[in-house]
């Protein structure tokens, strides 16, 4: 940490430095390399519905700068947050820095970085780009990323690759304002991965040591990937916690292991993916492992909120997904997934989901999509959940219209059985990707959401998007927005409800 501490101390007035850096970098770009960057600024006026003060305002900004001069690049990220009531929640911080040096054989990353061992059964650090996170407890807004602060070295010679890393992983649940006395990076990780490619096959081995305030544990993993002809490919990985008796591999109830296998088959426009998982006691630290979830990742609004989240203490199951592309560019997707959780022996809960979706063009001016989904998820007490949706896009002479509807019926049993409906409607009028205006209405009579004196909750809103050029975008939302879980790239996080005005300005330069 001494380097980042030094940088922070030096940056008492770092915003001036950044502006000078930004401007001078551009002017000297041709001579010394290239400075690029992006900025996300978001202003909110409003609050969680039915929460005081209703007119709370805040400004959030994230600036990313990258200076590259081959084979070296330097990156920094600066975050700022200023709520109107402050209350110790504001910050201006250098949140990330990174130095990356790359040659055809060597890949060196120092600072805040993202890295994966194998398929993430032991370690995966990542970011959800563009996501701004805020929890009900802290009410501090910041970017959603779980990075590793340390070093990652990759070296490749002929068919052999080796990767060595060491660093502390950020606990994304802790906001940047928690600097005093609370360790935002509780997990120290040291790992090495070696793989060797022979023809169309690759085999590898991983060793990782994990250390935090309460544990000091070692893990190992073996993986294999291979292609059999042009059509068939397979991947398998077996990760294991090395127990105190020194056993490299153990499959007892108390041992920790994660087994994952996948088979892909493609034939013309048909593609099939079959995956199997068996995870036990593999939740590592504050969540540094991120094995494949084997659950359909949905972009549809209502389905996205109810994606099953794997329990790494005990989960086994499978996922089968089939794609078929039609000659008219239509795309059919079929998915079936199952996950079994048996935290208490003999008391298994089984999640199942079936999904069918078809995205189709109808002539030159009309396109649309339709889907049907059924799931049952005892872990969240859902006996049955039926979801369907339809969207139609019509091209007019200069504008285009998009109508989206989704309906969800759920039967839930806690002390007693209840049924409820979620619905989503949106109409969007667009001019290419330059300009769009949308009217959105969500409603729900979910007893978990609706207060006793109401029958249902309404979430009406308008959104407006404008891209004046290739580099900038303005997004405006006015109204009430429903929160809940949001999933992106397989990672789910909680979004708070919001009522008010939100303006987001994104620029890339």
């Amino acid at each position, binding site marked *: 940490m001494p380097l980042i501490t030094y940088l922070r101390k030096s940056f008492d007035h770092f915003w001036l430095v950044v502006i000078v850096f930004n*401007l001078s970098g551009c002017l000297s770009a041709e001579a010394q390399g290239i400075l690029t960057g992006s900025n996300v600024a978001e202003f909110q006026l409003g609050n969680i519905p039915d929460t005081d003060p209703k007119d709370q305002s805040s400004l959030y900004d994230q600036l990313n700068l990258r200076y590259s001069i081959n084979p070296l690049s330097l990156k920094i990220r600066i975050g700022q947050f200023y709520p109107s009531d402050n209350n110790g929640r504001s910050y201006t911080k250098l949140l990330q820095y990174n130095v990356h040096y790359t040659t055809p054989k060597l890949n060196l990353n120092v600072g805040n970085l993202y890295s994966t061992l194998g398929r993430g059964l032991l370690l995966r650090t990542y970011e959800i780009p563009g996501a701004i996170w805020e929890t009900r407890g802290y009410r501090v807004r910041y970017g959603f990323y779980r990075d590793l602060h340390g070093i990652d070295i990759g070296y490749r010679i002929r068919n052999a690759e080796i990767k060595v890393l060491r660093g502390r992983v950020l606990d994304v649940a802790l906001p940047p304002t928690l600097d005093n006395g609370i360790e935002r990076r509780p997990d120290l990780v040291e790992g090495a991965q070696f793989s060797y490619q022979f023809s169309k096959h690759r085999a590898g081995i991983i060793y990782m040591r994990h250390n935090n305030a309460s544990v000091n544990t070692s893990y190992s993993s073996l993986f294999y990937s291979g292609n059999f002809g042009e059509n068939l490919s397979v991947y398998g990985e077996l990760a294991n916690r090395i127990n105190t008796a020194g056993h490299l591999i153990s499959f007892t109830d108390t041992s920790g292991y994660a087994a994952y296998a996948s088979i892909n088959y493609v034939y013309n426009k048909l593609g099939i993916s079959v995956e199997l998982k068996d995870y036990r006691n593999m939740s590592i630290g504050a969540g540094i492992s991120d094995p494949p979830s084997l659950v359909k990742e949905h972009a549809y609004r209502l389905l996205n909120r109810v994606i099953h989240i794997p329990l790494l203490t005990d989960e086994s199951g499978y996922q089968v997904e089939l794609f078929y592309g039609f000659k008219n560019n239509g795309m059919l997707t079929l998915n079936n997934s199952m996950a079994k959780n048996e935290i208490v022996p003999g008391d298994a809960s089984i999640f199942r989901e079936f999904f069918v979706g078809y*995205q189709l063009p109808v002539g030159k001016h009309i396109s649309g*999509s339709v889907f049907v989904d059924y799931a049952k998820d005892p872990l969240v007490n859902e006996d049955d959940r039926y979801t369907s949706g339809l969207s139609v896009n019509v091209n007019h002479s200069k504008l285009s219209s998009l109508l989206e509807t989704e309906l969800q019926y759920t039967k839930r049993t806690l002390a007693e059985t209840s049924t409820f409906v979620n619905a989503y409607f949106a109409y969007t009028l667009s001019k290419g990707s330059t300009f769009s205006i949308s009217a959105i209405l969500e409603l729900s009579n979910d007893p978990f959401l609706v207060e006793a004196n109401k029958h249902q909750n309404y979430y009406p809103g308008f959104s407006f998007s404008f891209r004046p050029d290739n580099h900038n975008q303005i997004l405006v939302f006015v109204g009430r927005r429903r929160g809940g879980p949001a999933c992106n790239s397989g990672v789910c996080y909680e979004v708070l409800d919001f009522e008010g005005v939100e303006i987001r300005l994104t620029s890339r330069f």
Partner: protein
Amino acid sequence: MNRFLAFFLLTLSSLSYVCGQTAYQIELLDINGNTVNIDAIKGEKFTVLDFWATWCRPCINSIPELVKLSDKFQEKGVQFIGINADSPRNRSKVKPFASSIGINYPVLLDFDQQLQSDFFIDGFPTLLVLDGKGKVLFTHVGFIQGDEKTIEDAINNLLKKKL
């Protein structure tokens, strides 16, 4: 107050200057597990990077149109490359999806978000047109029907300027 001013100035300074972006010699795995250097497969005149994901709905509409554009521009020195942004969680679906939707240009896997981070990608699909040195000349974010014409016009304009 100073901080609000700083915030404002930072945003303004971000908007005021367009410097252009660069790609460097980055290596990624392709969907068949081979390590590929982007420089080795870049286009003679321009390279089009399309960032997409299997769960991205607009990508299902954009990719068939990009395949048509790729077929049209390949002989003119423009190479299309798909950059898959799925996490390792969805890795198993990438090849079946790419095959079903008919992608006939190279698809590379950006597992550790290296390229996404370098180009500040925050939404899908995002399409970048790079020159021979890797500088970004054109960016297109999102896709609705008709955008393929915008992309085609942009590439044609760049080719005209190149002549």
